[in-house]
């Protein structure tokens, strides 16, 4: 009898755990969207505290420039090197510029740069808000009748939505320059041919949409940082856990939304 009941019992436990996990997941999703909505409805109030948002823009944008620049240099160089390797023997190198352009503008530039920014900013936001929560600073704000959503989360969200596209533009520019230098020094085609390839089949809509979608990625970065920061429990260990969850969730959501946007737009 035991050998019949044991698997049924295990299966029962599995489904109970699965159900518990699903309920938990949907609770998180609902809280996540509630936070998103509470931020969105307060965005118009930003004009009253513009200085806080500008400060955040500086932290998120200007301070991220060195990291984004270094990454962009290698994105440009690697794209060219990979293109040459994949084309060799099959496709003429005059199409190298076309491949690099489409790759950088549509996917690698926006997604890779956003993920790099997520690694830096989502963790920073989660750590900042997590520390504020455990240090009762958020409670202190509430006690002083200062709305944490308005003073903390909205500026970060707005700053991310504006600065991530800016950084992507900068990143793509640096990547193109880097790709040009790579072509000059290591590829057996003229600069003229490469630049012609870049222009070939260039579509301004692709460039615009590629940059515009990073505004959504910026919102995801800010939201995951804020959400997991607010979920922080305990001390330093809790903060560490929140930052990890924030960055992983940001990566996953960026890729999911990248697919959704690609599916809907292209």
């Amino acid at each position, binding site marked *: 009898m035991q050998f019949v009941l044991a698997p049924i019992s295990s299966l029962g436990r599995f489904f109970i755990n699965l159900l518990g996990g699903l309920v938990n997941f949907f609770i998180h999703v609902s809280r996540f969207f509630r936070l998103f909505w509470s931020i969105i409805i307060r965005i118009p109030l930003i004009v009253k505290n513009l200085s806080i948002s500008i400060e955040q823009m500086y932290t998120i944008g200007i301070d991220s420039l060195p990291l984004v620049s270094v990454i962009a240099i290698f994105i440009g160089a690697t794209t060219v090197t990979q293109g040459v390797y994949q084309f060799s023997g099959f496709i003429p190198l005059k199409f190298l510029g076309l491949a690099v352009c489409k790759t950088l503008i549509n996917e690698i530039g926006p997604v890779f740069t956003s993920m790099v920014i997520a690694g830096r900013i989502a963790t920073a936001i989660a750590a900042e808000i997590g520390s504020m929560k455990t*240090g*009762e*600073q958020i*409670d*202190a704000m*509430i*006690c*002083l*009748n*200062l709305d944490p959503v308005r003073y903390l989360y909205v500026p970060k969200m707005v700053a991310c939505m504006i600065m991530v596209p800016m950084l992507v533009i900068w990143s793509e520019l640096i990547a193109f320059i880097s790709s040009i230098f790579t072509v000059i020094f290591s590829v057996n085609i003229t600069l003229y041919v490469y630049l012609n390839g870049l222009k070939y089949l260039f579509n301004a809509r692709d460039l615009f949409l590629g940059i515009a979608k990073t505004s959504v990625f910026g919102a995801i970065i800010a939201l995951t940082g804020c959400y997991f920061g607010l979920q922080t429990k305990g001390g330093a260990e809790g903060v560490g856990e929140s930052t990890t969850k924030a960055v992983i969730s940001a990566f996953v959501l960026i890729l999911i939304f990248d697919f959704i946007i690609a599916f809907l737009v292209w």
Partner: protein
Amino acid sequence: MLKIEHLKKRFGNQLVLDDINLEVNKGEVVCIIGQSGGGKSVILKHIIGLMIPDGGRILLDGEEISSPTKKPSDFEKVRKRLGMLFQGAALFDSKNVGENIAFPLREHTDYSEEKINEIVEEALEMVGLQPAFKYKMPSELSGGMKSRVGLARAIVMKPEIMLYDEPTSALDPIMTDKINDLILSLRDKLKMTSVVVTHDMASAYKISDRIAMIYEGRIIFYGTPAEIRASRNPYIQQFIRGQRKLQYAVGVGIEEEEESALLKNIDIEKIKQKVILDRKLKRDKSFDLASRDTLTGLMGYQQFITVLRDEIERSISEQEPMALAVFSIDQLNELGNKYGQQFCETVIREVGRKIGLSIRGTDSAGRFSSDEFGLILVKTDPSLLETTVNRIRKRIMEIVIKTPDGNNIHPVLSAGAAMLDELTASADILAKAAGHALSLAKQKGGDCVVIASKPKAG
């Protein structure tokens, strides 16, 4: 002014606040004390609307400000009347001291920057900090300074009620005293009502008009500092004295299972008596047979002195009278000469047994030397000492011992006794004083009691 009625709060399966009832009058400083994790801070968070109760309500000037039906947004109006100082001050790390204090002013008032600056400096001065501090970052401040800045930030909007969440925890005694003075000066200068959560009894005694003690989610005591000191509730005594185990007024540790009965104040005297006897029984059981006097079954000298030391310490801490009496069998030498050593041992054994049977449950007896017995008399009134010792002596002398030649004799005893006082506050000195009194009794011819008297001044 502030009234808490039947407040309840549960976190998951844990009932943190069971039935909290508290009333704070205007201008009063009320301290809420209790063990860590007992729900003290939770009460403050309910008052200021950081938490919504599961049951009960909070009234401010008769108006309901918190109840299970209220939403966090309903507290905006009330919070203008309240200020809170958090444990660790909760200063905003990204802002300097001045910006921290000015933050609520900038957002809630139309004051010019000059006016705000003036108010910030005034608030810093009020908490005893120089205006130059406004440029410092929170990371550059010590714990005490942070508390002061937190206080300055909280008072800058001039709240009527200040809530302090363990304002002196993790501060050194000097800084603790400064913060306490600050709380009192704010009460005096700004006429603020204060509710202070603390587990620092020295602070509670100093600043509070009334103290509320929370235990297992209920207020088990609410009264003045003098009243809490005089409380006979053993848990309160344990907490305010910082003792590991519960203590009765007589200083006896009790077991945990007895706590609940005690806390409900069920016939404290009865339980106290039981515990005293239990203690004595346990102590007696713990004596090694080797440390007992084999002849009489009483404690041996070393063990008796150990118990004497404990009783002296306890009596001093409880400020209770205590005495030591030493008895000696007067005719022992004579009987020894006449009937031999074996008969002397019979006399000693019988006297020892009778002493053991004659004393109160709370007293202790031991064999002091070959023909002397010691008796520790706890809670003994000095005016009744001579009568008490004499009564015991006479009771012992009632026993009849048959001599080898067939006669019946009664043992005759002399006694010396000494009260525990500032001059005899050690086991050795008290024993010497009682021994000296016994010598005087023997010099008087025996069969009497002499009480050691204090040496006259000069």
